[in-house]
């Protein structure tokens, strides 16, 4: 660090009380900023993790989500037999026709009912989703009223422990296994045999179908095959694209809201920084006059004070990031606007988010420091030298 930088830093330390309060204010704003965006990041990551590059999800044309889609039973064999669909060790197609219905269950935290997605799946569903792992119990047996529950749903709703009975669709279902899915949205769901769930929920068709392709590069030909078959009124999507789109509305709302709140807060922090820097300029007017008399240009004075303000804000930025870090990995949940059911997800603080927080603090420092820095440079030298 140069001597002038060192001068600014040491002067800041001399006024450590006000400097600490300013840095503290900025730290709070950065912490809120990082935490809010960590929600959006976590929500998006959860939904995007639900998709695999090798999988395709098929919905009715025009449907934007599984809940508003429909597939005929007769559609299933037409898709399953396409050559692009991968086959399991038993040579059966890796395809799962599915049904998603929301049921109401009480939350662990407030005992209030919330919508929980129940997914009826085909026997190959667990093979199609690579990330699925059982942490307790086993996969449900097809043709029985056994179900599996995602680990995040277990933590979030009452009565979902291994061996518990859950009543829905005029029947009682027994939980025989708890699974994880790399924090994907599936971890907030209950899974059972689709062929038993359809009559239970009085449905006559499926809502979607997910298939594993023999190779991810076959998606285009798979799509072309479905779209060119006059018997099928369906639209296949890459599974990752579908889930990324599902997260769009919610993450946009969180981001817009988060940005709005942090902007309001940042106005306060910027005024704090401005106040501190005006005080610093007033306190050091004679020093500024002396530096100008020695030949330091106005530009150098502006940059020195601006750098001081930005440095102070960056200290706040680091503190804010440290304050926000403990929420990383904490589990929470919200209603997904597209499925109207609860999705549990984890706060996710990424290096890019922390870099964004630091950049935000630097901007607050620069905005707060600019006017005082200009003022410092504009004080007439002769008058500054007379200041006591």
């Amino acid at each position, binding site marked *: 660090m140069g001597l002038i930088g*060192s*001068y600014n830093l040491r002067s800041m330390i001399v006024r450590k009380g006000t400097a600490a309060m300013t840095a503290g204010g900025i730290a709070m704003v950065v912490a809120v900023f990082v935490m809010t965006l960590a929600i959006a990041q976590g929500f998006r990551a959860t939904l995007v993790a639900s998709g695999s590059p090798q999988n395709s999800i098929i919905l009715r044309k025009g449907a934007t989500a599984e809940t508003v889609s429909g597939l005929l039973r007769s559609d299933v064999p037409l898709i399953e037999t396409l050559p692009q669909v991968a086959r399991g060790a038993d040579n059966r197609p890796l395809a799962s026709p599915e049904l998603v219905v929301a049921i109401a269950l009480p939350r662990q935290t407030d005992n209030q009912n919330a919508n929980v997605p129940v997914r009826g799946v085909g026997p190959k569903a667990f093979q199609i989703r690579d990330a699925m792992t059982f942490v307790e119990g086993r996969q449900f047996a097809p043709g029985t009223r056994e179900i599996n529950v995602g680990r995040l749903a277990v933590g979030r709703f009452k009565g979902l422990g291994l061996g518990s009975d859950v009543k829905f669709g005029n029947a009682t279902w027994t939980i025989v296994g708890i699974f994880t899915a790399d924090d994907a949205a599936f971890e907030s769901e209950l899974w059972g045999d689709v062929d038993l769930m359809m009559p239970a929920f009085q449905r006559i068709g499926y809502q979607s179908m997910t298939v594993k392709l023999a190779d991810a590069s076959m998606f285009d030909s798979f799509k072309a095959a479905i779209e060119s078959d006059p018997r099928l009124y369906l639209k296949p999507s890459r599974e990752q694209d579908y889930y990324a789109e599902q997260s769009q509305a919610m993450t946009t709302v969180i981001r817009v809201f988060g940005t709005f709140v942090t902007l309001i807060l940042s106005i306060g922090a910027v005024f704090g920084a401005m106040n501190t820097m005006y005080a610093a300029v007033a306190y050091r007017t004679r020093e500024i006059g*002396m530096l*100008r008399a020695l030949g330091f*240009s*106005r530009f150098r004075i502006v940059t020195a004070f601006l750098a001081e303000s930005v440095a102070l804000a960056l200290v706040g930025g680091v503190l804010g990031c440290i304050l926000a870090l403990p929420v990383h990995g904490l589990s929470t949940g919200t209603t997904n606007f597209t499925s109207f059911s609860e999705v549990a997800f984890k706060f996710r603080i990424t290096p890019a988010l922390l870099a964004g927080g630091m950049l935000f603090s630097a901007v607050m420092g620069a905005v707060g420091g600019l006017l005082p820095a200009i003022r410092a440079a504009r004080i007439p030298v*002769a008058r500054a030298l007379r200041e006591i």
Partner: protein
Amino acid sequence: MALIELRDVTKTYKRDAIEIPVLDRVSIDVPEGEYLGLMGPSGSGKSTLLNLLAGIDRPTRGSIRVGDTETSSLSERALAGWRARNVGFIFQLYNLIPVLTAFENVELPLLLTNLSKTQRRDHVMTALGIVALSDREKHYPRQLSGGQEQRVAIARAIVTDPRLLLADEPTGDLDAKSAGEVLTLLQRLNKEYKKTIVMVTHDPHAAERATRVLHLEKGTLVEQTPAAVGG
């Protein structure tokens, strides 16, 4: 040719609509190597005159030439660069930066040059050696006496080896002993190092050390004392 040439310099300050004349058509020539004392009562315009010479204030009318440069016509930016190269300023209240050591305070003007860190160190130690404070390089201003602080300020003024030293009441805040030391130092800089010095002072004892003394009263030169003691 004189190092400094002031011609009909007038300075007027404006307070609201009222014009306050501070200097009225002052003309002075200061030859290279002179030690000039400027005396006069408070408000006579002597500090303003010094500020005009230093290029930290501008005349309302008239011209100021220092060396080959017409300083009154330079831009703000050019004037700052000119000050850094040509003028050493010594203030009544020393104006040392309290959070910097004696060494760092003296180094400040060298930051405006292209010297390397080692060269800067050599220059600073030479300047501190001239003011006999080499052993105080790591001391902060609060750890020094008033006289020592002023000597550090003088080291800062001479570290870039300027032709012209301007001193505004350099002994005004010092006890008699320290004032004597500072005046002896200035005299040495004038005689030994051939620095041209213009010193504003209230103190007749300080003025006695100058080779020539000018008196200002109400913004005009009223008397010229030829060839004072000069030590």
